[in-house]
């Protein structure tokens, strides 16, 4: 079975090194700007530093994201290349740096130093702005997620919008404009076709995507990402993936509530149980719908028609070179990351541990470990580690990159749709299905006390 242990070991080592590097750097930036510097300023200046501290607190998440996105995209490109190499029985990039760790860094530097071409006949302004406009929303979009994925860390309170998910979706819908711009401004027919394809595709798949998320919001009763995450705390049965809280009663029963808890949650008896079952199925379908729609939204295989390499050469970015292309490249992977984060927050319980606390706390050693971390010097004095956030972040990282890897696996397996089939699939299958699911959820949730 493990005749490939060597390569698996190498790729895991690479992943751990990179993830540790990324998150250490990002957290150091956050901590330095948001905690250490204000602490220092307050101790030195007293009240005079209040305004500076406010500004710093506001700027911290943005700077953190700006630091995070490029490094993360580099890592994701690398992990995609390595993972695909693993699945195609080869070795993958392994020359630059140990294990090929810096392969994508080399790519990035090369792209930065490459000649930047604006083709004749191209609309130079549009041509330049398209990648920027493509990239910017992924930054905005990622911002409200920060609070949710860090288990509402105080540093990111400032970003906690009450309509978080809508903001994220709105930001996610923006890149289409950029793609059409890029396609149009390139003065190339393939680009144009690619851009138009992406517009058609994004608009079609936006609907099931949003409907599936609305289903979740309906179950949660809120649009606030942090609240949605918090509701799902307490083990896998509470996650929106499994019924959006419909199984909370079962969870409570297992946690020690017994039959009484069941009776409270499922107050209508058998009807409630049936409805709970329906909710579970519906939400699983919603989850699948979201993944499908998101795949289409970010132009991943099997929905990568806008840049279908064997048809449209390179689609909307055919005429892009050098740094502009690098930005497209970067934004594509950032989008993948953002989409995975949304999935994690909305369906997979954010930073929640899949093992419920009533089991986890009974495992010897775990509570002690948490306590030890909480009481440590880093935690209590320097505020480097916040135990709630720390473990939540670990889980978020695992879930998000798990989804990323899954997307890579899909990329390695499936061929791509044809454009008319893609549209038919979107309009004739996904949208009716998402509406059906939505209606089922609307009625079924009346018979079950969710998240309760």
């Amino acid at each position, binding site marked *: 079975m493990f005749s490939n242990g060597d390569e698996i070991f190498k790729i895991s080592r690479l992943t751990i090194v990179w993830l540790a590097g990324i998150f250490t750097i990002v957290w150091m930036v956050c901590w330095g700007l948001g905690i250490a510097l204000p602490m220092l300023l307050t101790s030195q200046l007293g009240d005079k530093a209040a305004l500076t501290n406010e500004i710093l607190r506001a700027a911290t998440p943005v700077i953190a994201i700006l630091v995070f996105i490029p490094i993360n995209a580099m890592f994701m490109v690398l992990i995609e290349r390595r993972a*695909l190499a693993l*699945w*195609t*029985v*080869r070795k993958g990039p392994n020359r630059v740096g140990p294990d090929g760790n810096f392969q994508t860094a080399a790519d990035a530097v090369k792209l930065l130093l490459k000649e930047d071409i604006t083709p004749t006949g191209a609309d130079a302004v549009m041509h330049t702005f398209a990648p920027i406009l493509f990239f910017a929303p992924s930054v905005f979009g990622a911002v409200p997620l920060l609070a949710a994925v860090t288990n509402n860390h105080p540093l990111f309170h400032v970003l906690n919008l009450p309509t978080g998910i809508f903001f994220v979706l709105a930001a996610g819908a923006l890149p289409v404009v950029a793609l059409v711009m890029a396609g149009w401004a390139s003065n190339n*027919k*393939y680009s144009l*076709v690619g851009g138009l394809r992406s517009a058609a595709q994004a608009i079609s798949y936006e609907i099931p995507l949003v409907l599936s998320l609305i289903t979740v919001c309906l179950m949660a009763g809120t649009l606030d990402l942090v609240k949605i995450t918090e509701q799902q705390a307490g083990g896998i049965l509470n996650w929106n993936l499994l019924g959006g809280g419909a199984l909370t009663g079962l969870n409570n029963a297992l946690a020690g509530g017994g039959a009484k808890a069941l009776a409270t949650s499922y107050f209508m008896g058998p009807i409630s149980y049936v409805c709970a079952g329906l909710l579970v199925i519906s939400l699983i379908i919603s989850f699948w719908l979201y993944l499908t729609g998101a795949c289409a939204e970010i132009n991943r*295989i*099997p929905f*990568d*028609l806008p840049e*279908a*390499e*064997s*048809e449209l*050469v390179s689609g909307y970015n055919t005429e892009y070179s050098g740094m502009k292309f690098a930005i497209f490249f970067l934004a594509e992977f950032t989008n993948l990351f953002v989409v995975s984060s949304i999935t994690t927050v909305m369906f997979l319980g954010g930073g929640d541990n899949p093992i419920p606390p009533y089991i986890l706390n009974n495992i010897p050693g775990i509570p002690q470990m948490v306590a030890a971390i909480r009481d440590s010097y880093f935690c209590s004095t320097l505020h480097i580690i916040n135990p709630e956030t720390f473990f939540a972040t670990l889980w978020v990282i695992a879930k998000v990159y798990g989804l990323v890897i899954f997307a890579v696996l899909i*990329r*390695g*397996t*499936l*061929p*791509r*749709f*044809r*454009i*008319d*089939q893609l549209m038919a699939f979107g309009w004739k299958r996904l949208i009716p299905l998402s509406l059906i699911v939505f209606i089922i959820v609307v009625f079924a949730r009346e018979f079950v006390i969710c998240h309760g």
Partner: protein
Amino acid sequence: MATEIQEIDLKTDEMIINMGPQHPATHGVLRLLLTLDGETVKHTEPVLGHLHRGQEWQGQNRTWFQYQALIDRVDYLSGMFTSWAMARACEEIDGTVVPPRAEYLRVMVSEMNRITSHLLWLGTYLIDLGAMFGFPFYPFREREKLFDLFEEIAGQRMMFNYIRIGGVVRDPKPEWLDKLKRFLDEFPDRIDEYETIVTQNPIFLKRTKDVGILTQAVAKDYGVTGPCIRSSGIPLDLRRTKPYSVYPELKFDVITFDKEGDTWDRYMARILEMRQSIEIIRQCIDKLPSGDIMGKKQMAGMRIKAGEGFSAVESPRGILGCYVISGGGEKALRFRWRNPSFCNLAILPELLKGCPLSDIMAIFGSIDVILPDVDR
């Protein structure tokens, strides 16, 4: 008040897209001038010749011995077949008798070559359909194993120069046959693996089912041969219908489908052909007689009797014919290749009519065209 409702068509314009000569899906250097209405193809004009290297001209300006070494390049994915076609044509003119061992070896290596050709087709076809990062690597993996065998017996991976006029050039060692057997044992599992990933994949089915249907009438009109026409229900397989070499002694059936073939049938025909080739090679190994491998000594200054001959073999792409006119000298008077790709490609405009842009790749890929075979 009944006003006449006028139907006003949305004003659309035809767009001319120029695909190729350098395009990832044209397998080299075909250029297609497409007239598109939206994404629907109205008209296709293939522009060939971007790889026209003058192979026939070369045939008339090289000695027989020299030209033999060149002709693997006519259809580089199935060099054995081009060599074989030429060798057969010359043997026909010359009346050379090829020893049975050589014939069996020829069948063996040719069928191996058929497998490599189909494997490459499988990989590139999936690339055309968009699965470009995972699956295509698997067929190439098996292809490498066959290439190692080729390299051992013929000296090079692609340009074999193995089948010569009068026989074959090198006798394989027993270890080589053992290796081949080992490969044959594991290969069916690999094909199963491919089929697991591809054959019933819903997206693949959507892309290929009922796409590019080749009717028998059109196929016959254009002189289509090979897996394309067999999947359309015409059992034309030279190995069976006009058996040459030792094929009469081997057991296998012509693979045909009952209905008119679409892209998926063409895919399936090639998968089945690979399985069939495995069986043929197995039989060859079992029946391989001992004896000489060269009927007539190959010499640098060899001459072929005056006369003309046409011979055809069933290459992975169809009937590969070689029409030779010899003047009795060191060089041929006229070499003429009947290339399956050239003839099969001619149906492309017919098949593409009214297809969406994306189907161009699905259809073009499924015809399995090799550009040097088209352009020579």
